[in-house]
């Protein structure tokens, strides 16, 4: 319930911010008066009409995804890209609706609208992300997560999830090798994989992150599928530890790719 309400709130506030930031751009450019040469109402109407389309474009960048960290440069780039599309859409819509372009009014206004929506929306996303993480982590957590396998990678992952208040909240650890450790960063080690089923049920697990025991991936997947749990796999389980992997599509098949990094060839690799 909490995640759904938060998502709806996020989408609604984004729409409001988009229109509000366009209005701000108008007043910065025109002055804090209601001009008769360039009326505010058509401008605002166009922004309101374009806002849902812009939101759709923003949604395709998966910026609202649970696992997306708003603080990354990649996320900022996506928001900037959506803002650029928003300005283009706004210009087109304004032209088609009112049969006038911005040439006679103010082209700089469009640049300001772009800068304000790109920067403003990112700032709002940063703030909302912090609030969302805090709310989703409140007890009981919205996304109780089971960690399978106790390795240095999984310990580091738990520390990062907890340190960044990630919505995926580690609540239990199972280790196929039967570690003697009883807890890691406050997360209890409940035993070996023979306790999988009861852990999934009692802890109301929504996500499983496999960090070792590759030979059991099919069985973990099977358990997750049966209970509608999201399954994740750390690349280190496959021996990929240098964090240079990427998931791509090869003729429609998802493939994990690790290839030599050649500077400047990011778009063509």
């Amino acid at each position, binding site marked *: 319930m909490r995640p759904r309400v938060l998502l709806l709130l996020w989408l609604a506030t984004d729409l409001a911010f988009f229109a509000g930031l366009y209005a701000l751009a108008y007043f910065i450019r025109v002055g804090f008066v209601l001009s008769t040469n360039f009326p505010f109402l058509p401008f605002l109407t166009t922004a309101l009409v374009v806002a849902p389309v812009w939101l759709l474009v923003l949604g395709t960048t998966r910026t609202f995804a649970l696992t997306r960290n708003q603080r990354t440069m990649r996320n900022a780039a996506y928001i900037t890209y959506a803002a650029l599309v928003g300005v283009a859409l706004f210009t087109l819509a304004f032209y088609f609706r009112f049969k006038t372009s911005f040439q006679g009014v103010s082209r700089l206004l469009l640049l300001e609208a772009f800068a304000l929506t790109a920067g403003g929306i990112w700032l709002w996303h940063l703030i909302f992300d912090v609030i969302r993480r805090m709310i989703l982590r409140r007890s009981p957590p919205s996304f109780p997560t089971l960690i399978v396998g106790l390795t240095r990678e999984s310990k580091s992952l738990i520390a990062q999830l907890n340190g960044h208040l990630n919505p995926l909240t580690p609540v239990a650890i199972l280790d*196929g090798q039967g570690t003697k450790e009883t807890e890691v960063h406050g997360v209890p080690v409940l*035993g070996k994989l*023979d306790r999988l*089923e009861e852990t999934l049920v009692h802890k109301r697990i929504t996500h499983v992150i496999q960090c070792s025991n590759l*030979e*059991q991936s*099919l*069985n973990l997947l*099977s358990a997750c599928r049966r209970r509608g749990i999201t399954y994740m796999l750390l690349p280190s389980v496959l021996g990929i530890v240098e964090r240079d992997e990427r998931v791509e599509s090869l003729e429609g098949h998802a493939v994990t790719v690790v290839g030599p990094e050649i500077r400047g060839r990011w778009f063509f690799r």
Partner: protein
Amino acid sequence: MRAFILAGGFATRLWPLTEKRAKPLLPLAGRPLIDHLLGQLPADLSVTVSINAAFEKSFEHWKAQGKHPHVEIVVEQSRRDTEKLGALGAVAQWITQRSITEDVLLLTGDNFFGFSIQEFLGQYTPGLPLLAAHDIGDPGRAQSFGTIVPAPDGRHVAAFEEKPVHPKSSLVSTGLSILPAVHLPAVVEYAQSKPDNVGGIFEEFLRRGIPVEFRAFREPWFDIGSFDAYLEATRALVGDRVLLGHEAACAETKTEGSVVLGNHSVVRHSTLRNVILFEHCSVEDCVLTDCILDDHCSLRGIDLSAQMLREGTILERK
């Protein structure tokens, strides 16, 4: 004499096959491993099986089939690996609670003995602890087992070695032994400090100056504690053939090595090499090598090797 079968382990190395059943209930060549054991014991021998609370239901189901009505089941109240009494602890508890005053034939429920247990019983010298030893042939192969160092007379144990780097013999301790009634108090006493160490009781006998005898066998013996051991035991028992359970079917399928299809399991248009399917499995258009599928698995259009699949796994290529 009474028989006591240890079946209280949690068998975590064989997860997920042991998620809902104890190791002795795993099917071996078409019937539960424990049935192989019980089939070897004299009909008039009183048999007790020690289990843990986590697998109580699966043993109730097995008992309800009525093949072994004389077998008594005692339930150790542990549900987790960390709570268990320990194998020797379970023996000691049973001896104490039931005031056992007879010789005890002790068997570990996850062992398959290809040799005659009745013959082993016939070689028992009253009052002397007796161990069954499997002659693995090459001392080099005994490195991963507990081994017996024989005395010059070839009947008595001189010493034990646990997973020796340089084994002094090719005789490997098995899960079959006799504890004479006269030494049961020593068992109970030793179990208080080492409840996990069944093999240790024989070392304790030697420490106390009690002679321990052994009988060596060359026939097959398997300690089914791992995926590889389970497949190896199946290969040894089934050979290069297909073993079909009740209403099982294998159509237009190429098979190699040992293939066991449990009751109501069906395979079509596939290639199977050393594969065990438990009950109600369905496999179509697959290539499976060294795989064990628990009940109600359904696979279509995939290739797998060296996998144990948990009950109800559905893998279908879309």
